[in-house]
């Protein structure tokens, strides 16, 4: 896999990351990261001294320092703790110079504790070990760029060596692959001692190729001669640039200008050994990468400084292998095939083709598509909004339609008492036009008796803010009134209300009630017919007493010396008995009379006692005993006493009828009352007769259902209707010990009778 480089910076082209960056509009170069574990503050404050043997602007130092500096920085050794010194020992190796340099070091660093010294080139190492022995006696040293086979001097302190292994053979073999038809090789090399060392190395490495290719070593030539030689080189030549730091005339070459100049004139591709020359005219080769070396050296230094991992794992000699690196422009210039590059090659200065930019393009497309989706989404949303508006409009139309068609009276009114909107049902119901209704306060149409109630509802709607139900009467145009049943809810200072005209329903209810009362009356009268014997007896008793008393009085008075006190007593008794007879007559009349339904507070016990009194004579005649078991703490109830008497009478008569054929000793009825709970009163009538036919127990309360040959079958049906009208329920069941118990409940009268 060929990695891509931009001006020495790695650019991770993962499409998804790229896309995110693109969309964010934050296209920027990420900071290059070196394979390096982040070291935290323990190393801050550690001082590192870096000594260059000669001028700091030499490509080797620039590259190395860059990698070193960044790595140390990221490991926690800050720039202020990194000290760089150029010793210029290559230009001036004189003892005097060295002494002054040493003095300089002493002055500069005596007050600082140095934790590590990095030397570059053997001159610098030698200087530290020999000239600065007493200045930095124990500081560990990393001696970089030592010649191959350099013997590390024996010392007590930690000393780690490093040699940049120039890969002449590797570069050459790559060059041969790229230029398969090469016939000759020009080996360019300087005249410096180091240059010669490298040349010697090259000669040795390339020896095995000498039979196959023509080798020409341009070493004993001035720079100008070299340029001439290169400009006339045949096309099937490989230029192999070794190290050129000094020419034969002793002139130093440290900048990258040299490969540039060579390339400008060369008629054949130039391969070289150092990455500092890459981008300056060479095609490439198996290159020493100074920045990489610097980074590796930095990692080693950090390891030493932090003391971890254990010192044993720290190598005694740093080895950084070269990297195959190439200049894309030079490959193009010499028409060299990229496919011939070795695996893991780094190509710089690449100019991108569409194919190379495919990830950018894909990213851009994805971005555009995302945009398109976004726009489509927005369009869809707008369309939905429009369709929502449309459906809202339709709904409003529908509501308007319903508003117009509704049989119920719908309105919106304000709390000032005016209608704001009315539906046509108002016109149909009240006969006024809507304009007429809206012209006046709506209270004007309310029945005077309902006005206070209506005002109360409106003000509570305005304050309580919850729906209310109520009823009132509204005047029609013809002066009659209609009963309206309302549901109203407040909203701000408006009231939304729906009313139902219940006039007809109320009329029907009244008629039904009247009908029911009529029926109840008929039944009652029929029942009284059954009681005539009893009633005659009840009246005859006092009449008999009155007559006898009166006649006795007459006799007493006709005696010679009448007992006046006796006569007075007789008269008192006559009056009492007359009242008694009158009382019976009144009770009977009340039962028989057709009276308007009453609603008054009642004591159910009293109601029951009246009936038991009335029926007493009759029961005697039938050999029937009626026992009462009335709860003394019975709550008051509400209703019509006569109708309730009718119910009890009906139940007692039914019980008596059920025992018609029982032996006279067993003819017994128990009339009982009790509180079922705090809100319910219950009455029971128990007999010991034949009981209810279980098969017909459900039909008991049906009209015209009867078991009595002379019965109408209305009694229980009417009784149940009466109890229901009083808000109670009626039930019937057989007793375990024989006979049946009929019972009914009535709601207890709670609060004030209204």
């Amino acid at each position, binding site marked *: 896999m060929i990695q891509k480089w931009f001006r020495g910076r790695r650019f991770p082209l993962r499409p998804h990351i790229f896309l995110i960056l693109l969309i964010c509009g934050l296209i920027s170069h990420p900071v290059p990261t070196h394979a390096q574990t982040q070291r935290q503050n323990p190393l801050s404050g550690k001082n590192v001294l870096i000594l260059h043997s000669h001028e700091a602007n030499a490509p080797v130092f620039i590259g190395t320092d860059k990698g070193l500096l960044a790595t140390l920085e990221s490991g926690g050794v800050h720039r202020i703790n990194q000290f760089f010194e150029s010793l210029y020992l290559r230009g001036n190796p004189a003892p005097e110079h060295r002494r002054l340099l040493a003095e300089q070091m002493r002055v500069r660093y005596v007050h600082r504790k140095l934790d590590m010294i990095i030397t570059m080139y053997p001159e610098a190492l030698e200087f530290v070990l020999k000239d600065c022995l007493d200045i930095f006696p124990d500081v560990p040293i990393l001696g970089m760029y030592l010649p191959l086979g350099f013997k590390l001097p024996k010392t007590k302190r930690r000393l780690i060596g490093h040699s940049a292994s120039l890969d002449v053979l590797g570069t050459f073999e790559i060059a041969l692959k790229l230029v398969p038809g090469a016939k000759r090789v020009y080996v360019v090399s300087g005249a410096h001692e180091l240059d010669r060392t490298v040349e010697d190395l090259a000669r040795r490495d390339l020896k095995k190729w000498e039979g196959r290719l023509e080798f020409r070593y341009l070493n004993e030539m001035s720079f100008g001669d070299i340029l001439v030689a290169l400009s006339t080189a045949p096309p099937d030549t490989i230029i192999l640039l070794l190290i050129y730091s000094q020419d034969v005339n002793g002139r130093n070459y440290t900048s990258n200008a040299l490969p540039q100049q060579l390339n400008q004139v060369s008629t054949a591709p130039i391969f070289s050994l150092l990455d500092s020359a890459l981008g300056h005219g060479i095609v490439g080769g198996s290159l020493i990468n100074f920045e990489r070396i610097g980074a590796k050296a930095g990692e080693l230094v950090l390891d030493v400084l932090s003391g971890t991992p254990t010192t044993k794992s720290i190598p005694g000699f740093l080895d950084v292998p070269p990297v195959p690196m190439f200049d894309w422009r030079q490959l193009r210039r010499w028409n060299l095939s990229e496919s011939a590059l070795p695996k893991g090659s780094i190509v710089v200065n690449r100019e991108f083709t569409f194919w190379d930019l495919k990830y950018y393009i894909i990213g851009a497309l994805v971005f555009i598509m995302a945009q398109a989706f976004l726009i489509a989404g927005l369009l869809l949303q707008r369309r939905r909004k429009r369709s929502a508006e449309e459906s809202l409009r339709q709904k409003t139309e529908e509501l308007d339609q319903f508003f117009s068609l509704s049989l119920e009276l719908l309105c919106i009114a304000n709390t000032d008492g005016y209608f704001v909107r009315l539906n046509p049902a108002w016109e149909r119901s009240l006969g006024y036009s809507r304009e007429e209704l809206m012209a006046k306060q709506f209270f004007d149409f309310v029945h005077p008796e309902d006005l206070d109630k209506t005002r109360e509802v409106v003000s509570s709607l305005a304050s309580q803010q919850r729906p209310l139900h109520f009823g009132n009467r509204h005047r029609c145009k013809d002066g009659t009134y209609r009963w309206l049943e309302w549901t109203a809810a407040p909203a701000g200072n408006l009231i939304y209300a729906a009313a139902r005209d219940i006039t007809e329903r109320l009329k029907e209810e009244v008629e039904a009630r009247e009908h029911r009362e009529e029926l109840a009356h008929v039944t009652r009268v029929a029942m009284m017919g059954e009681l005539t014997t009893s009633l005659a007896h009840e009246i005859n008793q006092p009449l*008999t*007493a*009155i*007559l*006898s008393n009166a006649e006795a009085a007459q006799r007493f008075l006709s005696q010679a010396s009448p007992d006046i006190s006796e006569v007075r007593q007789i008269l008192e*008794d006559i009056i009492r008995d007359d009242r008694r007879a009158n009382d019976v007559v009144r009770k009977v009349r009340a039962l028989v009379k057709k009276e308007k339904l009453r609603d008054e507070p009642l004591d159910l016990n009293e109601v029951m006692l009246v009936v038991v009194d009335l029926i007493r*004579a009759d029961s005697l005649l039938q050999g029937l005993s009626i026992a009462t078991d009335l709860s003394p703490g019975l709550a008051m109830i509400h209703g019509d006493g006569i109708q309730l008497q009718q119910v009890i009478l009906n139940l007692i008569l039914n019980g008596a009828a059920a025992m018609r054929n029982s032996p006279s000793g067993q003819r017994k009825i128990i009339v009982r009352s009790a509180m079922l709970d705090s809100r319910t009163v219950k009455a029971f009538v128990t007999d010991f007769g034949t009981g209810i036919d279980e098969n017909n127990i459900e039909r008991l309360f049906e009209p015209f259902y009867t078991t009595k040959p002379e019965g109408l079958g209305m009694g229980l049906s009417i009784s149940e209707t009466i109890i229901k009208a009083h808000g109670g329920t009626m039930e019937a069941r057989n007793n375990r010990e024989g006979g049946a118990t009929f019972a009914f409940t009535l709601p207890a009268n709670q609060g004030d009778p209204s």
Partner: protein
Amino acid sequence: MTEEKPIVYVVDDDPSVRKALERLLRSAGHDAKTFASALEFMDFSHPDASGCLVLDIKMPKLSGLELQDRLAEKNISFPIIFITGHGTVPASVKAFKAGAMDFLQKPFEDRELLDAVSSGIEKHRRLRQEQKEKETLRARLDTLTPKEREVFALVVTGMLNKQVALDLGTTEKTIKVHRGRVMEKMGAKSLADLVRFAEKIGIRSSAG
């Protein structure tokens, strides 16, 4: 023989009626005694005097008709005047069958009641008198010898002395003596008296 004053017994559960009836009877010169129920009356040990019973038919526990039955069982012979309310025909029929003396429907005129009471008392007085007579005759009968009884039984059939003598196998003269003794012992002044006595105490000729 001095007769005790008759007593009218009133049984009615209605205190008003009871009291009014007592007054009415008292105003007419009767001694009246009232009872609130039949049972109360049953418990009362009435004196040996004539009287009558005014009884309400409808009463709790023990009705007038039931009381009538109980009295009959105990052979208490007070004439009973039932008083009743409206339309109790079946009850009145039953009461009459059981020997009720009268049946008054409330409300009734004083005369109706007082007449009924008077005749009731009279009836009872006569009844008591007859009973007493019967008892006297029975006591006299007990004093007769068996022979005299035989003669008594044959004589009241209308047989002549010699026919009796023939029947008994004795002489006419002996019969004559016996007959005189019977007449004397029984307190009969004539043969007609003797025949009437025989009827009253139920002596019939075995040959008759």
